[in-house]
């Protein structure tokens, strides 16, 4: 399990080229709140991460299409895995 804050930083970094950093962070935090994911000083579970990515992808789909949004999610998962391995 990764720290929630670290996971959010990774997600925001991957979404920023499309949404801009301000919106990427605001959207991630808003969805965390809706999903009941605490950000500070907690770990994020796989289920929580999947639920968060699902919500963020639903929005990203609208701008970049389903295929590209799925590729972005794959990149986020790969970055999370690399972070976990490190």
């Amino acid at each position, binding site marked *: 399990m990764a720290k929630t804050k670290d996971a959010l930083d990774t997600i925001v970094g991957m979404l920023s080229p499309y949404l801009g950093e301000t919106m990427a962070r605001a959207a991630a935090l808003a969805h965390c709140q809706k999903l009941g994911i605490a950000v500070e000083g907690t770990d994020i579970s796989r289920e929580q991460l999947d639920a968060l990515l699902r*919500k963020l992808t639903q*929005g990203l789909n609208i701008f970049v299409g389903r295929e590209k949004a799925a590729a972005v999610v794959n990149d986020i998962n790969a970055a999370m895995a690399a972070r976990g391995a490190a």
Partner: protein
Amino acid sequence: MSRHARVDLVFLIIALATAAPFVLPLAGVATGEVGDELRVYVGNLSKLGFLTCAAVMSLMAAARLERDNPMRPVWRTMAAGLVLFVGGEIVLVMYQVVWRLPSPFPSLADLFFVLAYPFILAGLLRAISAYAETGYPIGTRRERLGTAVAVGGVTVLAGYPVLKPVLAVPAAPLAMLLNVAYPVLDLAVLVPVIILLRIAIRFRGGEVWKVWAGLLAGFLLMTFADVLFGYFTATAHESLDRLVDATYILSYAAIARGALGQYQLLK
């Protein structure tokens, strides 16, 4: 430099180069007969080129989006409006470039231009709904309604000084109708444009912002150009038509860049 940044630079250079023959005389630079010829060819063909690029890119972007994507109808509707703008511009090119005649007013071009507005307006309104469907924090419905009321109020107030000289000048019924219709339609388009700008600015720094900044800046410039055209014509300041032409060129270039940006985002 990234590929997108290079495309931005190329667009900017072409837009400024094609607007230059219109801007230079306003700055006191004499361009002579060469300038007159340049203005006929470069002005008409650049407008047609940018509008065609915008229409084609909008159609291609719509085709790439999935059937259930709420942005698909936005780009399709926008494309329909832009295709009509292309139709109007072709009529103007026929008069001014092919037949070397001053384009009459009203003409068939005005039919295309007026018919384009409902599509552009519908596309922009649908875009507001599509943004709302993202689930991202784009502000509340109440905020958007407040913006609509505020912009609507300002446009009504601004519309009076613009329309007053237009109505005061004697004109044939159809010409008068069009002189009034263009600023009114432009000011109607302004309402969703400002709402979308307020939403899109939250995405600044990202590619989504670049797409919508281009598109919305283009529609803002178009409104400005139409209002200037109506005002200068009514107040017999036709010598300032070059400013209007330069504004149209920059407007169409910005719309084309926005549409191209959306297509690139989907690739």
